[in-house]
């Protein structure tokens, strides 16, 4: 039986109830993942879903694959262990803005710089859902929550910039409200060799409803979304506006300009550039300065050996050089000596 050919979405739906709040953005992500997985040509038993703790991190329970709901903030460590132990597996990680960026940002960073071959989905709802509504590292400054009654003081972190500075080889942003775009990004992530980091805007309709409204509202969505395409200029607002790098002043500066068909003035999106600088710049758009639109899509995608790959390459090299280790030789190595039964004098061997 060639199991992979017959896989359908249904194969990935676990028995039992899904327990997110009705209306939660998580449902759409679950459905998209279940749509994409059967198309990847990977046998079902080779998928592993690993998460931390949070509403988002309940994800593995709803997937009919191998899964591990670990502890708060530590999913990258378990996922890395699984991948190192068996590189054949397709390992997916689910985390939240609290799980992955508050308690767990250190592991997130180290996973990214090591380039473990993992697919990472960060569900960003800009709130702690499971603990019922405190501000998170991505909540906007001034946000009023149960623990910030006069407005939060913390400046938010941009997950995309953080991932790029951490050395990520694949960084993308998408939205649970746009399943089509999300599925494209998931497909690209699945195809990438290395850590694929995806920030997914996800609405928590109970504790932070409307956090991403401006990207969805009819009136504002064209001017707020900058949908990226490799090799294409950075255009938005139905291709009426674009982004240029103005080097006329002493320091280069970004500007929005009207687009009239002359694409050469505008920055061309090249996610494959070695240098991280342009990716960093595009990832900051809209987040650092809201007068720009926010980039959606694949921001960076470069190729670099994965950790698990090199780990096994070294192991194979060692085996080739020294031969498969023999326990007997190992134990009986170093300065050993024998106390004989007949010859009663100890002698080195």
């Amino acid at each position, binding site marked *: 039986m060639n199991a992979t050919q017959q896989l359908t979405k249904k194969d990935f739906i676990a028995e039992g109830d899904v327990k997110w709040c009705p209306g939660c953005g998580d449902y759409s992500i679950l459905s998209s993942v279940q749509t994409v997985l059967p198309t990847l040509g990977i046998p079902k038993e080779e998928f592993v879903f690993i998460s931390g703790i949070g509403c988002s991190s309940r994800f593995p329970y709803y997937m*009919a694959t191998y899964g*591990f709901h670990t502890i708060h903030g530590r999913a990258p460590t378990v*996922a890395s*262990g699984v991948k190192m132990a068996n590189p054949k597996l397709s390992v997916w990680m689910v985390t939240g803005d609290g799980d992955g960026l508050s308690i767990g940002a250190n592991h997130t960073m180290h996973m990214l710089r090591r380039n473990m071959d993992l697919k990472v989905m960060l569900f960003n709802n800009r709130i702690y859902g499971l603990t019922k509504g405190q501000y998170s590292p991505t909540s906007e400054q001034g946000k009023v929550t149960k623990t910030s009654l006069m407005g939060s003081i913390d400046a938010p972190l941009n997950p995309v910039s953080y991932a790029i500075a951490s050395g990520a080889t694949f960084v993308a942003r998408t939205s649970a409200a746009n399943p089509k775009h999300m599925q494209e990004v998931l497909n690209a992530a699945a195809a990438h060799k290395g850590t694929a980091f995806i920030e997914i805007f996800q609405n928590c309709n109970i504790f932070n409803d409307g956090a991403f409204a401006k990207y969805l509202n009819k009136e504002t969505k064209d001017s707020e979304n900058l949908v990226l395409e490799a090799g294409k200029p950075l255009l938005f607002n139905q291709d009426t506006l674009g982004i240029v790098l103005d080097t006329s002043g002493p320091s280069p500066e970004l500007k929005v300009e009207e687009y009239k068909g002359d694409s050469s003035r505008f920055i061309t999106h090249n996610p494959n550039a070695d240098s991280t600088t342009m990716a960093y710049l595009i990832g900051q758009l809209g987040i650092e300065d809201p007068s720009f639109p926010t980039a959606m899509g694949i921001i960076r995608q470069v190729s670099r050996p994965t950790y698990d790959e090199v780990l096994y390459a070294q192991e194979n090299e060692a085996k080739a050089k020294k031969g498969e*280790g023999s326990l007997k030789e190992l134990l009986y190595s170093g300065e050993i000596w024998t106390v004989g039964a007949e010859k009663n004098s100890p002698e080195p061997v």
Partner: protein
Amino acid sequence: MTTLNKEKLDSVTIRFVGDSGDGMQLTGNQFTSTSAMFGNDISTYPNFPAEIRAPQGTLAGVSGFQIRISSNQIHTPGDELDVLVAMNPAALKTNIADLKQNGFVFVNQDDFNPTNLAKAGYDKDADILTPLKAKYRVVEVPLSAMTVETLKDTNLTAKDKERCKNMFALGLMYFIYNRPSDVTEEWLRTKFKKKPELADANIKVLKAGYNFGDTIEIFQSTFEVPKAQIKPGTYRNITGNESTALGFVAASKIMNKDLFIGSYPITPATEILQELAKYKHFGVKTFQAEDEIAGIGSALGASFAGLLAITTTSGPGIALKSEFMNLAMITELPIVICDIQRGGPSTGLPTKTEQTDLLQVMFGRNGESPMPIVAARSPSDCFAAAIEACRIAVEHMTPVVFLSDTQIAIGSEPWLLPNLDALPKIKVEHHTDASTFQPYARNELLARPWAKPGTPGCEHTLGGLEKENITGKVNLSSGVHEEMTRIRAKKVENVARQLPATEIFGEKSGDLLILGWGSTYGSIRTTTEKLLSSGYKVGQVHLRHLNPMPNDLGAIAAKYKHVMIPELNSGQFNMLFRAKFLIDTKAVNQINTKPFNVSDLTRIAEEIIGGKR
């Protein structure tokens, strides 16, 4: 050349001490190898400074290596020193108290100058040696001068020359104790293969030291410690950390499973990771993680994926691992957590020894979270203890704690190499039959099946929420939690069902049972031997398994009038034992970063038997 009498000694304890840069560890190791190959029984204990390389000559920079050689079986590096070799005033100051009355102290007289005296906190003009002469046999040797003189015709830099002086001291000791120098010569040639001029210089100085002893007329006789009656077989000198690493490689070979270690460096556990890094060709995967949490997290992932997985750390690192240890417990995945205990609390005394983490590994987790604990008793014993920890982990599907400590980890002893056929067998099986798979089904030991990701039809999700038996479905209802708590406890208790009868050394009943665990083994064994030879009715039980305790332990203890529990802590195992058996034990506790003295333990035991305690 004079010919001196050879005086026979049963046993000699020597400590080499000097500045961190003086090569004392290496000197001690050479004396050890030579004596081991000669046929003595040996026991060693190095003592490192907390600083990497504290300023030269200061108290903080003193590094020492103690070795005891014997013609009998010995189990400790000795209570008191027969000989102290002190390379500078700081070394003398911090170590002289351990020298026994009338013992030898060799000093490098060239280093007893005003500068160094001041660095050691003495008055720079003080004469510190003369007063010592009343109590000890002080031998002043111009070690530096003689070394430099010996090498005057070589092209070495002044610094390089000076650095050879430890070989002068070693040569002198070889003379006094009638050891051959060939083992060390051989070793120097290998070590300096690429710099033969250094090998030559060191050997020259080694011989000069030997000849110096032969020449100067300060000794009435030399000494000889005859060969010990040693069990026949092949031996190797080994530290606890080395033997721990080998134990894990062996377990991995026995089960035919690759070994994964996820760890973060910390003294004194680091060497296990460093040793295992050498064994890639054994399929060993070492992962230096970003912290202790990531260390155990990656190991747990590797275990889920089907490898033999371990993580290593010391006390402060356990605090960070405990949340994951708890997850391993509730998901019932096999991993071994090695705690190489050091002096606490907090950062504490990072280079010193202590047995103070038992209750932490036993209880340092939220909720009821039972976990088997095994302890190694000596450097070479780590090998067997590591294998046993792995056996329990995979046969019972549980995290297991492996306890060692600084004394064991960096101490060394001759290890009678095991016969490979005699290594324990370990049963390990991965569930592959989809039709019968239930993630929390149980076998007769209550272990659940281990189905690896990649196995068709056995897809399942683990996690830290309470789940129901057999199906493993998340279930927070009251009956389920009660049942699962009971099962998890019972599962750990079942480990005791598989254990052989507890070994008792000495009398099987009588006046006193001395009950211990871990690195106190040597001191307690020697104490027991002494007491037995004095005619006391004493038995010794030294536990490998601290949790669960062996099933026969209560019955054994009941056969003695008193139970004495010596520990290098404030009475941690003692508390567990008292609570369980309601026996009014005599706890003997010491927390001064040092192993027990046999003489102290013997005295206390006699007091207990005599009714004075």
